[in-house]
């Protein structure tokens, strides 16, 4: 493990998101000058704002060693409720409230099943994903709902020159970083993710930690859904689809481990989310075959998981005891 090759590999894996980031931007930039234009870069940032927020929530759950597959469905349920709440849809203020509440409620359901009834997170959130999507489809009768123009206005609004979606995503990033790094809850979350049984023995209320993690993930999905709604102005039956994959990929690309206990919000989740969005954006600019999009995005996700697995095994190797100091 002292070989320069292994050290280089470990360094590369630790900086994997940065390296991929540079590669993607250099690649698309060389293929199209338009890709690197300030307007398009801002566009990428705007488009990735919902993913950033959902990925932040996902990071909380991943840190506990769990996973939340229901985020896309949570976004859809919230959006469907907002679209159906009043004739012609609710106003943005009411919609935010509804979507956050729906996220919190579904997150609470996930958290209750995982923390109290000890069901495996994968199974719980898969079921909630299915139920949520089904409920949303029933509510909207699979029809697309158009919302008032106020939504698009919120999506395009600027405060002090900064677009609202970017501002919101930034606020969520800062808040999550502070919660994870500077509050007892955040540090205990890391402990639970490392070894839940040991955390319980140490006197940590592991159920509460797990419950809060899933609620936060749900709330973030609700907020991300609102932003997405404000950018699209309509709810289709595909609203929020595949967001779970985007969010997991963004978090893992950013260094969160699927084994739990390791990962950071900044710059991890931010880089991961913008990276995924940049790939989609680049493909659009290059006029690539739309049927290729899922293939390319899944390739990026596959890469993220591969990086995580390699990083984990390398980490295990480097943490093995060193007995001798070689001259």
């Amino acid at each position: 493990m002292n070989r320069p090759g292994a050290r280089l590999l470990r360094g590369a894996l630790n900086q994997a998101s940065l390296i991929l980031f540079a590669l993607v931007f250099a690649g698309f930039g060389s293929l199209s000058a338009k890709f690197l234009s300030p307007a398009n870069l801002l566009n990428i940032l705007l488009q990735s704002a919902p993913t950033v927020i959902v990925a932040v929530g996902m990071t909380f759950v991943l840190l506990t060693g769990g996973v939340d597959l229901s985020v896309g469905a949570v976004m859809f349920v919230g959006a469907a409720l907002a679209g159906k709440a009043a004739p012609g849809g609710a106003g943005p203020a009411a919609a935010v409230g509804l979507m956050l509440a729906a996220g919190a409620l579904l997150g609470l359901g996930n958290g209750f099943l995982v923390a109290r009834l000890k069901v495996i997170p994968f199974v719980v959130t898969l079921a909630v994903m299915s139920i949520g999507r089904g409920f949303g489809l029933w509510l909207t009768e699979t029809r697309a709902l158009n919302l008032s123009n106020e939504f698009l206005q919120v999506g395009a609004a600027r405060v002090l020159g900064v677009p609202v979606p970017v501002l919101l995503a930034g606020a969520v990033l800062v808040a999550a970083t502070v919660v994870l790094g500077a509050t007892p809850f955040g540090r205990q979350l890391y402990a639970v993710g490392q070894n839940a049984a040991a955390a319980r023995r140490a006197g940590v209320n592991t159920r509460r930690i797990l419950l809060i993690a899933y609620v936060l993930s749900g709330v973030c999905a609700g907020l991300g859904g609102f932003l997405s709604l404000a950018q699209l102005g309509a709810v289709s039956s595909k609203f929020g689809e595949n967001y779970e994959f985007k969010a997991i990929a963004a978090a893992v690309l950013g260094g969160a481990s699927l084994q739990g206990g390791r990962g950071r919000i900044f710059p991890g989740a931010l880089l991961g989310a913008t990276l995924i969005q940049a790939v989609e954006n680049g493909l659009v600019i290059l006029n690539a075959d739309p049927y290729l999009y899922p293939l390319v995005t899944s390739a990026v996700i596959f890469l993220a998981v591969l990086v995580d697995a390699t990083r984990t095994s390398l980490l295990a190797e480097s943490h093995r005891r060193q007995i001798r100091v070689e001259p």
Partner: protein
Amino acid sequence: MIEFQGIEKRFAGVRAVGPVSFDLPPGATLGLVGENGAGKSTLMNLLGGNLQPDAGSMRLAERPYAPHGPAEAMRCGIAFIHQELNLFGNLTIAENLFLTRFPRWWRSPFIYRTGLRAEAGKLLAQVGLELDPHTPMDRLAVGECQLVEIAKALAGDPRLIIFDEPTSSLSTREAERLFALMAGFRRQGRSLIYISHALGDVLRLCDDLVILRDGLVAGRGPARDFTIPRLISLMAGRVPEATAPAPTPPREPAGAVALAVRGVSRPGVVRDISFELRRGEILGIAGMMGAGRSELARILFGLDAPAAGELRLHGRPLQGATVRERVRRGMAFVTEDRRGEGLCLEASVADNLALAALPAFARGRARRIDRPGLQAALTPVKAAVRLTADADGRAVKTLSGGNQQKVVLAKWLLTKPGVIILDEPTRGIDVGAKCEIHELIRALAAAGTAVLLISSELEELTALCDRLLVLNRGEITATLARAEFDQARILAAALPGERSA
């Protein structure tokens, strides 16, 4: 200080402890001994709030005491230092120390880092650990982790500290350091409960002793009234045998070379290891914790690759052979981490037993398992290790440590190994099972198996082995024949910083 009144605990209707009544005077050190499964841990978990009693009550400092969780026990001034360390490698030392009671900015939910560092520094100073409190936990050695665990216990300023087998993963020097700390705690007027299989330490450190057997108090009194043989007889409920295993009777010279190791090195782990292990020989490896014994075993068994050197099994090179091939060619490895690496805890005893030899019982193209054949082969092996008869269908995790180890041994015996590597085969198991495993090792050698025995117990090594290697920081510092076995000489070669000829 603490008083147990008819306390009782059952698991699924089976009585684990009780009814038990005894008390501990304030400021005293109580030694708690008993075989594995005697109820020591259950009793301490009741005291530490991890379990609630089914009957009886406890009194702490003359007041009723019934904790509902570890946090409540901590608030009442009881600290429990568990056998397995409850530390988190992804947090810093200070965060580990204050995980459930972080100092905060005034009335805010935010951690006050400056205060945290100062408080943690004070605690670390109390246990004599000179490290920056913000060091990540995963950079610490085992002995240092133990000290952090003790510092954590001190954070609540406990009146009573429970030590559960604190020395099992410590070197002699680290253990002495711990005993000095314990003496300091006594001077501060704290009560201590000390649980250990190392009976010599218990007699030396404790004022009073309680001996548990089958969940009941089998004996109690001042420590000076006890001797090691008497303790063993009370624990086991049978006539005491000699404390140290009887030496292996002299045998004819060992047979052909079974395993030849030439110049094996792995950077950062071991350097230039050479030895020969012969058929019918028991070769011991002594050394301090962290000397590279288990790491060497992993290399021999093919779990880690050596950077240099040559291995031969029965004269044929082992280079590039996977673990599977090694097993097929007659190697076996009993790991020191029985629960983590040696067993599938949730699986049944029968399934665990079959695991290593399964390929030999696969029949036909479809590789169907020959169950009757397997059963027939298992019977003598189970008898050889004297495994509890009714164990087959039970999950391995429900067995005692001794029986679990017998399952691991039986699993490998089924493969009829020519070379068996045993890494700490008797660690943390009760006296009875220990004797049986010693007998088994001798029987294996007598039948021609080459045995490589790694152990931290010098008595075990000197009694069982024909020859001893001493490992020190990854190098062999002494090779001793039976006539040269001498504890002082072995220790001198094993202690870092010293070298023997």
